[in-house]
Structure formats: structure tokens, C-alpha cells
């Protein structure tokens, strides 16, 4: 069961990393400054979790 939990946690972090990549890609492609601000703000909690800070 412990191993299963580790796998689930790893999958969870992989999902977080995937969302980060998508958000960065959207940030690069965005043309409106409002969207860019939004992507950056949304990115922060994902990065904090990916870096295991929060």
C-alpha cells in the first residue's frame, strides 16, 4: 500500500509538472497582457508545489 501511495504521489507531481509546461507554453503564446498576468499568477502555486515549498 505504501508503494502504491508513492506511485500516486509521483503521478501527482508529474501532473503538476505537465500543467506547469502547459501554462508556460500558453504564456509564451499569449498576446494580451491580461492573459500573461493571469498565467503567471496561476503558475506560482504550481511551481511552489513542484519545488516542494508549499
Amino acid at each position, binding site marked *: *500500500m*505504501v508503494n502504491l*501511495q508513492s506511485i*500516486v*504521489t509521483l503521478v*501527482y507531481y508529474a501532473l503538476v509538472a505537465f500543467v506547469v509546461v502547459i501554462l508556460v507554453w500558453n*504564456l*509564451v503564446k*499569449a*498576446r494580451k*497582457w491580461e492573459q*500573461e*498576468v493571469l498565467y*503567471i*499568477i496561476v*503558475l*506560482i502555486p504550481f*511551481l*511552489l*508545489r513542484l*519545488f*516542494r*515549498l*508549499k
Partner: protein
Amino acid sequence: MRDERVETAEAGRSTDLGVVLRKLLLSGLGLLLLIASGVSFYRHRHLEETVVLSPGLTEVKKLSDYFDGVRGTVNDCNVYILEGAAPGATMFVMGGTHPEEPAGRLAAWLFAENAVMEQGRLIVVLSGNRSATTVTRLGGAYPTDFAIPTDYGERRFRLGDRWGNPLDQWPDPEVYIHYPSRQNLAYADIRNLNRTWPGRPDGKLTERTTYAFMQLIRQEGVDIFIDLHEAELQYPVISTIVAHDSGEELATFVSMMLSDEQFNIGMEYSPKNLHGLSHREVGDYSDAVSLLFEAPEPFLDATRGRTTTEQLLTGVDEFVMKAGEHGLLFERIDESGWPIDVRVGRHTSTVLQTMESWTELNPDRPLACRGVPRYAEVIEKGLGHWLHDPVQATPGRVVTE
């Protein structure tokens, strides 16, 4: 025509450059936010708390010495053993089940730094859910830590949360099904140390932690287990001792003695159908008498004002007072609030009274402790007076919690 195309291309390049610069600028601002918040979170998670070991402290073990399943995890906390000069019973005092209730941890700290057992044995844990000391309530705007003034400066402690850090145990289930009762509980309570007793060896981190504590209780032959807490004034279980069936007589005795001589404290029965709590499961799954102490903490009240360190330590809050004026509280509050010294003093006195009452009821297995201040002494001198200077301590007698 040709000139127009050149101008359009140049304008396009100029616009692209502007967009790139804008993205870089906004990303830089985002990075600043990320660094500022990240540094704050990192410092909180890694703030080192010191413990100056009492002269009566004979051994510091790790929780993993009792169950290997928590070894190397954030919850592999220190276990402080204070062996008495004469034989007697074994009492286990645990702080930090809910680290957002600092009086519980600090009262346990006073035992670890001051207690000398004359009869019997005392086991102390300061961070029952150590993971929960490394995070504060999400969206709660809690301070990350607080300082207690002492005779030589200040000692700093982490303020935690009711639940373990999601960095250490994640994701939560949709519904938390308690083991072994299969009672359905709130999903986040799978990270709540006081909902996962008696734990299981192959469960999630918090369940493995309570399982490790159960192993400690069994292997050390603990006679009395005490779980130190604080409660909001709008919660009916406050200023009281919650006792397992096996501890009703003892808790009643303690409540009567303290209410007569020091301060009012009630006694309540542990509900038989509410599972996962220490006062129920430790008593059910071990030979130990299980008690849980609650002190008042206005900081936890939903109607509180600003969530500050000052409010945490003074317990003064005009909004909670206003709730009291409307009869919404289960404990009194006035302009003097509920200072941390009062709350810690209640816990130290209640633990010491439990030792005395236990000894009267079980003279063949006594408990006697000296060196720990009672309610009046903690209020008079401040709890910081009883926290010793790590710099002046004997080498090898300071550990990090």
C-alpha cells in the same frame, strides 16, 4: 508599395520586441513573488527549534525506534525519556498533535527541559505530528512562527496546523475511511493525527505515525497517555479533560482537585462512537489510560479579528469578546484574554495533578515529578523563565526538535 511593406515589417518586429519585453518584465515580477513566498515557506519548514534537556532526562529516542515504518520521514520525531530514581508507573505526555495549539507543545517543552522524575517514568513528545509543524492553515493568514521572551532573549517556535503538510502526504482521498472502524470522516482528516488512531503499519504517513505511537505505548508499558490540546471558545469541549472509560475515575479526581485549588476544569466522557481520537482509541487498543486536555485558545475562533502573533500569545480579541456578549461561547473571555502563560500553566498543573491523583489511586505504582512549574508559577514568572538558554547548556544536552 515596397516602402509600406518594410514599414509594416518593422512595426511588426517592434511590436514583437515589445511583447517579449513585457513578458520578460511580468515573468520577472512573478519570479520575485515566487522567491519571496518560497523563501518564507522554506524558512518556516526548516526553522530549527532547540530543546535544552532537563537534568532528569535520561535518553532521547526516535519514534522509528518503535516502528521502522516512519524512519526517515518528517514524522520521525524525538521521544524524550525521563527515568525516575525509584520505580513506578509510566506516563506519556504528548504535545504537537495539533501544532496550531501551541500551549500543548510548550507545556510538553517545560517537562522536557525541567522535569526530574523521583518516582516512575515520564515519556514526552513535543511534535506528535511533526509534519503539521511545518505548515500553517492554507488561506488562514497564520504567522509562520512565534517567539517566547525568556530571561536571556527569546526562543522561537514554529506555528503549525491541525493537519499534516500536504508536501508530506498527498493526495487526500475523497472520503477518509478510518481504520479499523470504517467510519467516514472528512477527507483532510487523514492528515489529522487525532483522527487516525490507532493507525496501521501500511497506511498513509499520519496513520503510520499513530501506529508507531501505539507501538511505543505497548513496548514501553505506558500506564497513562495524555494528549495536550487547545480549543476555540465556540467549541463546547473546552477547559476540560476528555477521558476514556478506563480513566473516568482518575479524570474526575483531577478535575475536582484542580477546580477546588487552582482553576476550573471539567471532565467529559470520550464518546464511544467517535473514532480516530486518542482518548478513545488509545484506551481501546492498549492498556493505557487515555486522557485529552483542552485549554482555551481564542486564536482558533472563527469570529476572531486579526490573526497575529500577538493575538496568538495574548489571547486578547475584541471580536471573540463580542461573541461572548451574545452568549455564543462555552468559555468566558474579557479584556485580559487568554495569555499563553495561563494556557500553558493549566496544562502543566493538570499533568502534575494527574500524577498526584494517579499515585493516590495506585500507590503501588507511583508517579512523582519535581522541577516543573505549576499554573501560578508559570503566570508569575512567564513560561519563558522555564525555557533554558541553549548557549549556556552543558554540551551534548541540546537537541533540535
